[in-house]
């Protein structure tokens, strides 16, 4: 029997690995998820069979409550609220692991320094941090508290002190340092660990929360693994390790996607409310976006208008631009090119470039033809253009007053690809950069465009 249960556990561990692997590709992901849930069922059934259950009612009540809550939440929640939902689920998972460890401790408060003791402490710590951390992340995303980083002077040293305190309390609970009642020490330890979870997450901005959730997810895996060590259960150890490792890799991938390091996310105090980034350049804040974000902005809409400017010519990025256009069209996006009469540095400059890249003439529209369309355009991609989309031309006092401009600000989303916030030929600042619905995609147009090609291709 024992052997049989172990084999079922092993099978379920293998199925977890396979399921997780299948989640990597959109084509197999759904099946992978099903496989993982099957594995979970196997593990649970094996456990139930293996364990002499004392209080069926209690267990059934727990399962019923949890299942109901989870199921309803999963069904009801808006698609846009997914990240916070995942976050809170994760918090419960971490909490459960912590509770397992806590229960073990309460069963034997004098366990003392030793394998079991240490693993109990690790399980409790990680589980507790995951629990409260996840709730804070949830609150930030759900708008229950400010999405801005909450910082105070000396924050990092303070957090360090709390962390060391937790370690000390853990040791103390195992009877190492203090000789107080271990149970009391343990509760204090637990409380501090819960506090630590809050402290770790509050200085991180709402926009970085998905990364935090992914990291906490990795933690909850480790907590499960620790719980496995506590009760000596292989499937817990394996699955937990699996989630711990894959979660960490995933977190790194997400950071890489944001062009940030994990440390930067954790200690940066960045990520204000909605991706706004008070970067170095310019006085006024702009919203930045990277290739991945821009690809998503362009790839899932109906209509995109590209506005090429002198920067496109300088970067000689016309071939890459063409590629992006083609890819978007393959996805069913309607792509047009708006050519401003004085874009570039000579009459017809943009025509020469686009002809070189063999962009079909019937996709080119001049100012008069396209200006009224911007209102119904989903996204505008401005490539190295500046003056020709500068709304200050509408201000009679501006030195470019009277120049007709492309009214790209009427579009739902404006993405501007240039190297910096430097002005163009006319030498004046551009209000468009700072608008609510504008994303700045900084970089040399050729490089940025090449990145964009890659990212658009990756879109599902």
């Amino acid at each position, binding site marked *: 029997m024992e052997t049989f249960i172990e084999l079922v556990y092993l099978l379920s561990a293998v199925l977890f690995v396979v399921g997780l692997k299948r989640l990597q590709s959109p084509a197999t992901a759904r099946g992978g998820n099903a496989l993982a849930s099957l594995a979970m069922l196997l593990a649970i059934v094996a456990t139930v069979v293996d364990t002499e259950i004392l209080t069926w009612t209690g267990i059934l009540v727990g399962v019923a409550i949890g299942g109901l809550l989870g199921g309803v939440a999963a069904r009801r929640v808006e698609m846009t609220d997914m990240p916070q939902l995942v976050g809170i689920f994760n918090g419960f998972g971490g909490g459960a692991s912590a509770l397992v460890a806590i229960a073990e401790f309460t069963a034997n408060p004098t366990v003392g320094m030793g394998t079991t003791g240490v693993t109990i402490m690790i399980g409790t710590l990680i589980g507790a941090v995951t629990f409260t951390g996840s709730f804070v992340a949830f609150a930030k995303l759900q708008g229950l508290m400010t999405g801005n980083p909450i910082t105070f002077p000396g924050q990092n040293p303070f957090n360090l002190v709390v962390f060391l305190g937790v370690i000390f309390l853990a040791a103390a609970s195992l009877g190492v340092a203090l000789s107080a009642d271990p149970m009391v020490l343990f509760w204090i330890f637990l409380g501090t660990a819960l506090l630590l979870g809050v402290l770790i997450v509050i200085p991180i901005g709402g926009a970085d929360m998905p990364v935090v959730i992914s990291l906490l997810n990795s933690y909850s895996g480790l907590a499960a693994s620790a719980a496995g060590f506590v009760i000596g259960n292989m499937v817990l150890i394996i699955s937990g390790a699996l989630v711990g490792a894959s979660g960490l890799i995933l977190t790194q991938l997400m950071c890489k996607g944001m062009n940030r390091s994990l440390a930067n996310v954790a200690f940066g105090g960045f990520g204000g409310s909605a991706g706004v980034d008070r970067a170095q350049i310019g006085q006024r804040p702009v919203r930045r976006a990277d290739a991945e974000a821009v690809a998503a902005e362009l790839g899932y809409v109906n209509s995109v208008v590209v506005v090429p400017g002198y920067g496109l010519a300088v970067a000689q990025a016309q071939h890459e631009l063409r590629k992006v256009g083609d890819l978007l069209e393959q996805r069913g996006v309607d792509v047009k090119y708006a050519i401003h009469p004085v874009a570039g*540095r000579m*009459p017809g400059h943009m025509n*020469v470039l686009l002809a070189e890249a063999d962009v079909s003439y019937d996709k080119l529209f001049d100012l008069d033809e396209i200006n009224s369309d911007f209102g119904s355009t989903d996204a505008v991609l401005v490539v190295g253009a500046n003056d020709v989309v500068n709304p200050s031309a509408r201000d009679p006092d501006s*030195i470019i007053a009277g120049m007709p401009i492309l009214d790209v600000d009427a579009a739902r989303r404006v993405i501007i690809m240039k190297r910096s916030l430097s002005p163009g030929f006319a030498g004046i600042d551009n209000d468009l950069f700072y608008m609510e619905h504008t994303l700045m995609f900084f970089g040399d147009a050729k490089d940025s465009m090449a990145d964009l090609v890659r990212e658009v291709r990756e879109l599902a």
Partner: protein
Amino acid sequence: MKVAVVKETRPGEARVALVPQGVQVLLKAGLSVTVEAGCGLSAGAPDEEYVEAGATLAGSPEEALAGAGMVLHINAPSLADPDELGLLGEGAILLSFLDPLGNPDRIRALASRRITAISMEMVPRITRAQSMDALSSQATVAGYKAALMAADSLPKFLPMFTTAAGTIRPAKALILGAGVAGLQAIATARRLGAVVEAFDVRPAVKEQVESLGATFLEADEEVTAEGEGGYAAELSEDQHKKELELIAGAIKAADIVITTAQIPGREAPLLITEEMVKSMRPGSVIIDLASESGGNCATTRMGETVISHGVQVIGPVNLPATIPVHASQMYSKNIVTLVGELVKEGGGIELDFDNDVVGPATVTHGGEIVNERVKSALEA
């Protein structure tokens, strides 16, 4: 107010100052338009289209100009026989290329007839005035055509060909002066497959040249002379010598040279000496777009093609007139936009010399020469 357009009398001129689309705009602004019959024919605008657009046809220039408050021209009306200037009524507004810095007599005559003369050359190169900038639009035509002309004259192919009958190397083109016309020449020569190098004395141009996929001829030491309003200034003697050395080095390998260097109000700088011409391969082609203002090449003769040391040196005159349909369309758009600056709501005319375009562009008014630059040039 009656706006008149007559057939251009300059020999070889095929353009017209106003095309039928322009007529409609002027009518909408409250003006009336009379055109001389046949004036647009060579520019792809037959009389019917003018009539359709709402213009009145006139059988002769006299008839067209009689009573006109505003006259639109490309080339300045001639003083000589037939004296076109004489047909303009006193106080009329004339919009045209006038070459005010190069042709003082004409300006004095215009002033003395109390004509309000607005010079297309004097439209300032500010952002707002780009759509009135006929110098640019016509230079675009000239640059394009210069490259075509070079390709047509060259006894070689421009692009590279790898064929069963051997490999043809691409032709090399050198563009001197990369302003509006020069840039367009670069783009067109590149389109045709030539390998293009270019040089200009304004430092901003390097990036622009490279943005067209051509290479910029780089001097060991800087050769620069940035003037006002985006134009070049004259080079110091020392700098000029350096420039000549630079060009002498590059020109030997060139099959095609197109020069466009100009400095407003002065003779065109000499960029190609006879020595340099001699150093080129026989059969090569030099197109000197500055020939009308003295030429960038020592052996250029305006309006002619001379074979000098086996090299064809072409000094074309009035290239825009060789692409009359589009050159006229663009000129017409420029001049109509400029007229828009003069018209009040309802069709009346108001000359606002504080207007940042009208002010600088007006050369004579009320019997006076009102433009400071022109005045001081005339006095000098």
